């Protein structure tokens, strides 16, 4: 047991017991959570343990408190070690400083992965990228590029391992640098299961964090609860795509309440998927067009420059690129827009894809990447 503690950060047993208590309270808190999107049931998590149990599970309060109290320090350490996890708590030095801003901050954080990344989670070097699970290819592409470029610039990208935007932000960040996944289940549980390989990659090269103990399964209430951790961790929270009643907007609200910067990626005004970020922009959030906008907002304009300009384009390619930018996703559409034969359009698109200006979806349609064309090439 001592080996596990020496290797990683330490947590005091009382704070750890809080995590185990939350796991036991899972079904009771689930009943209290209304299930309404936007409900702030995690406010209960501000309460000290005794009050929390009394509110959530009055009939079995004594029993639960006794069960958690009976967990010995050795038992807790063994459970962590068995799952390959470690923990830090609010009394320790490793505990991320910015979490202390939140009144309902987690008492302990259970981690799986690189503990040194905790220290890298400094208050000005962390960005939280959130967004809808039901994302469009536009949102996916932007999230991936944001993740890749922010991570490449040395920023730690925090997200939630969910479908859609979250996963794309993680994948992009893994390409460029380091990323932290904050989970609504135990840090050793890959949820959703379809993201098992992504979770494994993050746990190997980055960090999976949770306030729940190893093996804890997710509940509906644990997702808003983990959102509050994500909101508090990031110096800036960027919403890539979200519908009007999305959980990502809860994260944005929480971040705003903590006085964090808020960024949003503008989208088409008639797209449901972009309704959330567009509304945030209308309310004064930073416009995030690319990673440079995020860096400017966090570090001050011009503090750090990203070089992201592609090679110059000759005329047929420039026209084809303009056609894709105008919304033509298929080869036929580009050929029709340019008035050229199908084979010529195909060759132009293949070259643009090769140069990195376009991406190709599994469905055979093209979309624009964030790579800018150099000035003077007709775009």
């Amino acid at each position: 047991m001592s080996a596990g503690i020496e290797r990683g950060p330490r947590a005091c047993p009382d704070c750890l017991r809080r995590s185990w208590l939350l796991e036991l309270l899972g079904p009771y808190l689930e009943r209290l959570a209304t299930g309404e999107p936007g409900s702030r049931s995690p406010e209960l998590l501000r309460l000290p343990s005794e009050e929390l149990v009394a509110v959530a599970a009055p009939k079995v309060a004594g029993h639960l408190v006794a069960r958690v109290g009976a967990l010995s320090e050795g038992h807790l350490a063994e459970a962590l070690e068995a799952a390959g996890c470690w923990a830090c708590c609010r009394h320790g030095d490793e505990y991320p400083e910015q979490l202390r801003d939140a009144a309902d901050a987690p008492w302990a954080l259970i981690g799986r992965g690189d503990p040194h990344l905790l220290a890298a989670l400094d208050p000005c070097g962390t960005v939280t990228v959130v967004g809808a699970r039901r994302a469009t290819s536009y949102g996916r592409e932007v999230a991936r590029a944001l993740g890749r470029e922010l991570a490449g610039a040395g920023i730690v990208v925090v997200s939630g391992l969910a479908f859609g935007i979250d996963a794309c932000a993680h994948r992009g960040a893994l390409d460029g640098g380091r990323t932290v996944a904050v989970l609504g289940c135990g840090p050793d549980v890959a949820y959703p299961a379809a993201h098992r390989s992504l979770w494994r990659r993050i746990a190997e090269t980055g960090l999976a964090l949770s306030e729940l103990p190893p093996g804890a399964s997710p509940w509906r209430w644990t997702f808003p609860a983990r959102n509050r951790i994500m909101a508090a961790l990031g110096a800036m929270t960027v919403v890539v795509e979200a519908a009007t009643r999305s959980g990502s907007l809860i994260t944005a609200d929480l971040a705003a309440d903590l006085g964090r910067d808020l960024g949003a990626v503008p989208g088409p005004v008639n797209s449901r998927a972009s309704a959330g970020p567009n509304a945030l922009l209308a309310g004064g959030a930073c416009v995030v067009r690319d990673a440079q906008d995020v860096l400017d907002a966090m570090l001050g304009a011009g503090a750090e420059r990203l070089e992201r300009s592609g090679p110059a384009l000759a005329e047929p390619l420039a026209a084809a690129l303009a056609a894709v930018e105008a919304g033509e996703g298929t080869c036929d559409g580009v050929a029709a827009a340019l008035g050229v034969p199908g084979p010529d359009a195909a060759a132009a698109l293949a070259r643009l894809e090769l140069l990195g200006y376009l991406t190709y979806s599994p469905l055979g349609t093209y979309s624009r990447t964030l790579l800018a064309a150099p000035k003077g090439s007709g775009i």
Partner: protein
Amino acid sequence: MLATARTFTLDGIFARPVRVEVDVHRGLPGFAIVGLPDAAVREARERVRAALVNCGFEFPLQRIVVNLAPASLRKVGPGMDLAIAAALLSAAGQLEWEGLARVALAGELALDGSTRPVPGALAIAEAAREDGVEALILPAENGPEAALASGIDVIPLDGLGRLAALAAGEWEPRRPESLSLRLEPPPGAPDLADLRGQPHLRYALEVAAAGGHSMLMIGPPGAGKSLAASRLPSILPPLAAAEALEVARVASACGRLDAVLCGGRPFRAPHHTVSPAGLVGGGVPPRPGEATMAHRGVLFLDELCEFRRDALEALRAPLEGGEVSISRAAGRLSLPCRFMLVAASNPCPCGRGEADPDCTCTPLGVQRYQGRLSGALADRIDILAAVRQPSAAEIGGEPGERSADVRVRVCEARRRQELRLGPGRCNAEMTPAEAREGAVEPPAAALLADLYARRRLSGRAHDRALRLARTVADLRGAETVGEEEMAQALQLRRRDQ
């Protein structure tokens, strides 16, 4: 008294020789058929009895045993009625025919003694020729089909009543005219001119046809995917005579010869609820599936993502090997199935595509749906074409180029491939070594090398791009693959996920 007659039973698309031995002797009257008959063969008892009586013969009130040899082979279908009747008449002494052992008979009997056609007449005629039979006696309706097999005398018979006259040499029926095999699509067949606008889709079809590449089309409902696929046979090169005979053999065994011979290359579009056995063949007794019926033609899988996964998996080996091998406890059966695979799919379960704000699909649903596009079968697909809804101007515009004109270019490209690869072969069948052998200009090679390095392409994807580039060059009449051809091939290719 004993008599034997020769007939055939159908095994997949092949006919196997069967000897019908009939023994009539004294005892309790009875009629037994032994030798692994199926239900239809066993019911021959009733048909034969009625047909004999209604044609003026006498049904012997003696003990009759019919043995179908070899006893280990399962006999299927009603096609043995005629042979049983002939052997029975001979054994009962009502038919004097010393030549019976030198001819073969196949056909179903009606209760009034007239004959009814059987499936697989072409295969039966070919098997009869192999078996050294002098003449094959068949129902008149099967005559033209059986006459496709050269080197065998086909005698059409319209009823059991004529058998005695035939045996005595008093009646010499007219030999049937052979069906004429159609090598090209008939006039009035679906034409590519119906596909208006969509220049890229047309081009993708042309490349697919020219190189024999399999193709997947993805696009919203009503964009023209099925229309495009059904026009593909019309731009494929005409069948060679030997290929046409293969097509006819399969169609004959499936009992649908006329329909196929009207259409040149077959086009099969099974519904997505098809079972694995229905798709590749199987069942008891094993029957050819859609893949075999599409032999030398096009197999079109519409709504690819809705097909059962096991059915698609079953298609894998046949796609590679060009034949289906069905192994059962009773034996093994190989069926030919060299077809072009064309598939179509919607972008998501609701069909609108995620870019449409009205798309109602959940992310998990879309993921599961598209996951099927990346299965093992998709790995065998060379070309991916995104199909978009044509604009009103395109639909109202000029008709596209006619199939006949496109086919001229396709045939020329195929001719170049045959010169290089050998007769009957096309670029899609090139081995990796052959694919890398051809001349590629340095800028084109650099383009491919660049992609290979940047996207970490698999070796298979690399070869696929090379094959496609070769087809594009063949279509242009170029000996070497230039930069332009390579760029087009890279666009057309299906990307690995």
